[in-house]
């Protein structure tokens, strides 16, 4: 049964991922992303990474996906106005895709996987907490600075908008 569930999640992830890439309707692609993200969360859970699985659900489905959907809906372009990708563009795109796939495949395939039996952690979250308070204290604080920068970026985005409004009023 473990196998079946694994294949179910894997199939869901891959199929919805394909749909995201190949769908002509950008909103459908956005919503399809939900199934991709959920499938990945399921795979995390199957690997015993429960904290990661739930974080994936919370941050990606609850946060990133909502942001993406807002953007997609805000900049709504009717399907017939979408720029058609010509054959000339498809060739270099295809070559690059194959190249990237080859590199990734080579690196992953060429890695020596040291298969070690490890005890499954019973309480992942307290281990993560411990690590955050000791080994990874610098990356932890660094993360907050990254978040701060993103917040400043968001504020600037709004300010730009305000200037536009003023100009419209003046003209």
């Amino acid at each position, binding site marked *: 049964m473990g196998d079946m569930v694994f294949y179910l999640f894997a199939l869901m992830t891959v199929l919805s991922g394909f749909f995201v890439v190949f769908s002509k309707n950008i909103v459908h692609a956005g919503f399809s992303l939900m199934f991709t993200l959920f499938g990945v969360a399921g795979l995390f859970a199957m690997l015993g990474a429960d904290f990661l699985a*739930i974080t994936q659900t919370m941050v990606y*489905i*609850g946060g990133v*996906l*909502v942001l993406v*959907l*807002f953007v997609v809906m805000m900049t709504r372009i009717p399907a017939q106005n979408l720029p058609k990708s010509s054959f000339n563009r498809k060739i270099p795109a295809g070559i690059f895709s194959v190249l990237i796939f080859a590199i990734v495949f080579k690196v992953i395939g060429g890695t020596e996987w040291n298969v070690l039996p490890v005890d499954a952690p019973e309480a992942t*979250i307290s281990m993560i907490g411990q690590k955050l308070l000791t080994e990874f204290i610098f990356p932890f604080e660094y993360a907050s600075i990254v978040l701060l920068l993103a917040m400043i970026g968001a504020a600037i985005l709004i300010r730009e908008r305000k200037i536009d409004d003023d100009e419209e009023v003046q003209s």
Partner: protein
Amino acid sequence: MEIITKLLTETFGLQLDNTGQLVAGGLTMALIMALVMATCAIVWTWAERKVAGFIQSRYGPMRVGKYHGALQPVADMVKILGKEDIIPDDADKPLFVLAPIIIFIASLLPWAAVPFAPGFIASDMDLGLFYIFAVSSGAIVGILMAGWASNNKWALYGAARGAAQMVSYEIPLALATIPVVMRTGSLNMNDIVIGQQGGIFHWNAFHDPFLFVAFMIYFISSIAEVNRGPFDMPETESELVAGYHTEYTGMRFALFFLSEYANLFLVSCIATAVFLGGWNLPVGNAVVLPGLVFLAKAVLLVLIQIWIRWTLPRLRVDQLMHVCWKVLIPLSLLCLLGSGILLMVSGEIAA
């Protein structure tokens, strides 16, 4: 979970291996959970109308059923099953069909980690509380999907407002529970309830002032999170017709409706488990009828939410955002700091 598996193996004499035990126990548990949720949601529709009626000096439903229209929700369910299912021609059909199902699943999933009584929990997760917040955010995507698929301006506006409101208020909701997690040292819902044993002053809400403020923040945000008055911006009937489910009819609409009431009950159940001592009695350590004690507390909270909805006028959108970002979030961060210092000081005194 253990109770159910025990019952299945001992009373009914089923011979089950590990997998069978897990699946059978889980399935029974999930089924019970779903039935409890559905029944409660249906009963709430009646309770809401009765309470609203009394607040507005009228009776509310009186005719169906002998006592005060007690069978009204059943009649409503039967009626709604026989209604025509209309999908507008301009709607985005696949998304239109999918949206209510996704919202329904997202409203049922968090129930798996609600501890009704000792051992009576579908999934005794380590990260129960975190999990509940994570999966209930799936409803936001469902709302956006419904609004978009309807191909109706009002539905789309309602969905955008609803999503913005829900994501905003999810932050104070999550931050308010952190002082509790600090005190308990666990995200497991069972552990959180057990940590509140020993009378009302051991309940998280009445343990110290910071936790009380955190409880208040949680309660206010939870009303906004389930889109109810005075925070029912996504459904303002005077400007947006009915919000994101304007185009939905019949059973599809009923799925939205059920999910809404299920969510209302869910946030109350979480408040009960996290802040109000779960199944613990106000005095003493004894565990008496834990399921009923739990439900009584949750029901009380739901009645307060209904009371608030029918008493207070609706906020404006800017006020809504003001309350969330400029009041509740800074306040919950202060609570976090205060609880941290308090725990440190009391720990040093004890040591």
